[in-house]
């Protein structure tokens, strides 16, 4: 075969062309890019916590209690002389883990259920709809607390509780998507061609739901992170001596007068992490929506 002539333009396949378009549209949105960068930064910091944090999360230095920020302790120390910055870095592990895993678990539960309800309809749809309503009728906090009471408070149980809390909304969304997608022409053609249900779901329905699901996942993660903080704040999630942003806030509430910064920093971390995922999610939603022009 002769050498490749660079003047000949290469025809990209449909899928590759779409990906490039998505990437271009995404890069035109500074907020979304910022969101992506910051979210990734948080994840990287969480993974490489031992490297990033200067101190261990439970290393107490009783000679420096409630110290103000300094060169030695970037964000100061808490009531037990532990370095706040390091605790935030280590705490990000629990918080982000809870957020991401709860969302993944919720999707793993919700998407198949929603798909079944939306695609097959029949008798299964009203049953699932009623069950979803029941799940929604309970304040999510109660479910979390019940789990804590039955299984014991821990990060794992908090994650499960958060997943259960997030699932109903995701069920509704996947159901809606499946419902509208099954009316599409290509699905009808596939049915007419005798394709099996599994094949249709796998090849036609699911891939087209993907963009909605990705957007939903990016917006569910911050809600789950905040949820973990709430649960740990109430003593139902991460237990001492392990740390998470919620635990730090709970410890800090007794020192609001002397050292409000102890509550400010972890809360700021939660806020920025949340904001970055929300910006990312919003940007993705705009980019993947065929109706937006830029």
């Amino acid at each position, binding site marked *: 075969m002769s050498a490749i002539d660079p003047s000949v333009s290469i025809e990209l396949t449909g899928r590759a062309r779409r990906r490039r378009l998505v990437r271009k549209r995404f890069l035109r949105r500074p*907020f979304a890019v910022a969101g992506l960068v910051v979210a990734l930064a948080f994840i990287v910091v969480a993974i490489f916590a031992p490297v990033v944090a200067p101190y261990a999360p439970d290393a107490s230095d009783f000679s420096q209690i409630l110290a103000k920020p300094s060169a030695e302790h970037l964000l100061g120390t808490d009531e037990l002389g532990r370095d706040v910055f390091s605790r935030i870095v280590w705490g990000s592990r629990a918080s982000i883990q809870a957020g991401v895993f709860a969302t993944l678990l919720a999707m793993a539960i919700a998407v198949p259920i929603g798909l079944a309800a939306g695609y097959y309809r029949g008798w299964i749809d009203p049953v699932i709809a*009623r*069950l979803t*309503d*029941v799940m*929604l*009728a*309970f*304040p*999510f*906090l*109660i479910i979390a*607390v*019940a789990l804590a*009471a*039955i299984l014991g408070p821990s990060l794992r149980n908090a994650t499960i509780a958060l997943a259960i809390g997030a699932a109903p909304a995701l069920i509704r969304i996947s159901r809606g998507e499946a419902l509208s997608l099954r009316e599409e022409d290509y699905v009808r053609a596939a049915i007419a061609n005798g394709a099996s249900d599994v094949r249709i779901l796998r090849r036609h329905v699911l891939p087209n739901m993907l963009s909605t699901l990705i957007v939903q996942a990016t917006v569910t993660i*911050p809600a789950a992170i*905040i949820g973990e*903080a*709430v649960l740990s*704040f*109430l003593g139902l999630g991460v237990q001492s001596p392990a740390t998470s942003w919620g635990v730090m*806030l709970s410890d*800090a*509430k007794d020192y*609001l*007068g002397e050292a*409000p910064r102890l*509550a*400010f920093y*972890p*809360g700021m971390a*939660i*806020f920025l992490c*949340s*904001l970055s995922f*929300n*910006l990312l999610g*919003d940007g993705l939603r705009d980019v993947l929506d065929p109706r937006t022009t830029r």
Partner: protein
Amino acid sequence: MGGFLLRKLGAALVVLVISSMLVFLGVRALPGDPATALGAENRDPAVMAAVRSKYGLDDPLPIQYLHWAGLAVRGDLGTDQRELSVAETIVDRIPITLELAGLSILIGALIGLPAGIIAAYRRGKPEDYAATTGALVGLSVPHFWLGLMMISLFAVHLDWLPAGGYVPFSEDPAANLQHMLMPAIVLGTGLSAVLMRQMRSSMLGSLSADYVRTARAKGLPERTVVLKHALRNSLITVTTVLGLQLGALISGAVITEQIFVIPGFGRLTIDAINQRDYTLLQGVVLVAAAGYVVVNLTVDVMYSVLNPRIRVSSKPA
């Protein structure tokens, strides 16, 4: 219309019944002897026996459930650990949380709705970006952190507002509002963000609709076009969103009441859990679930009243 209402009512009842069963089973699923959970922390056999017979714990489960449900429907939710009537405690506390919720909705609507309208009307302009970014910030802020920060600033450092506690409105309206202001702002911020986004997206749809073009072509002043015509249709969606957010508001109230030490329904939930007062918890969760079902039902019905298309399209084919 009648058939539609009946179907919605039926669905709501089904949800209510299943929820009550879950509550009932939940308490019985907790580790340990239900007799201990339901009344007697002491192991005195006589007391245990009394508790057993009072709650019929030796009867088969379905009988127990029916017995409990029967009492609940008549308003008897039992007595809690301190020998107080659960129903009475709940009835005392609910108005406080409702006041908090009401004030939060007021603040949320006062900020969020105009912001959404302006953002839609001035789409793409600086006002839109400012409002949209503000909404995103409002959604991302953990509201209990906001509460802690506000207490630190306004109560501890500036001493402008009380850090917590509650004064009944009937006793001292001014003090009551002073105590409720920060909690209501905390809850209202998140709500205003949701409302703003909903209003904006709904108004964007209305403003580009044909009837708005007609109104403009007729020469109506711009203010009338926006406020009288476009707004009216958006209000429908926004009202339903508001109704659905009520659930989130109540959950948010749980933490907010905890932080600001307000003796409301949310705080009751936490207290019941901390004190392992399962009779109280049973009653509280049941009431919360029932309340949610009722609100949802009302929202559904209202939506169909305001939007006739929903009534028609949901008829079974």
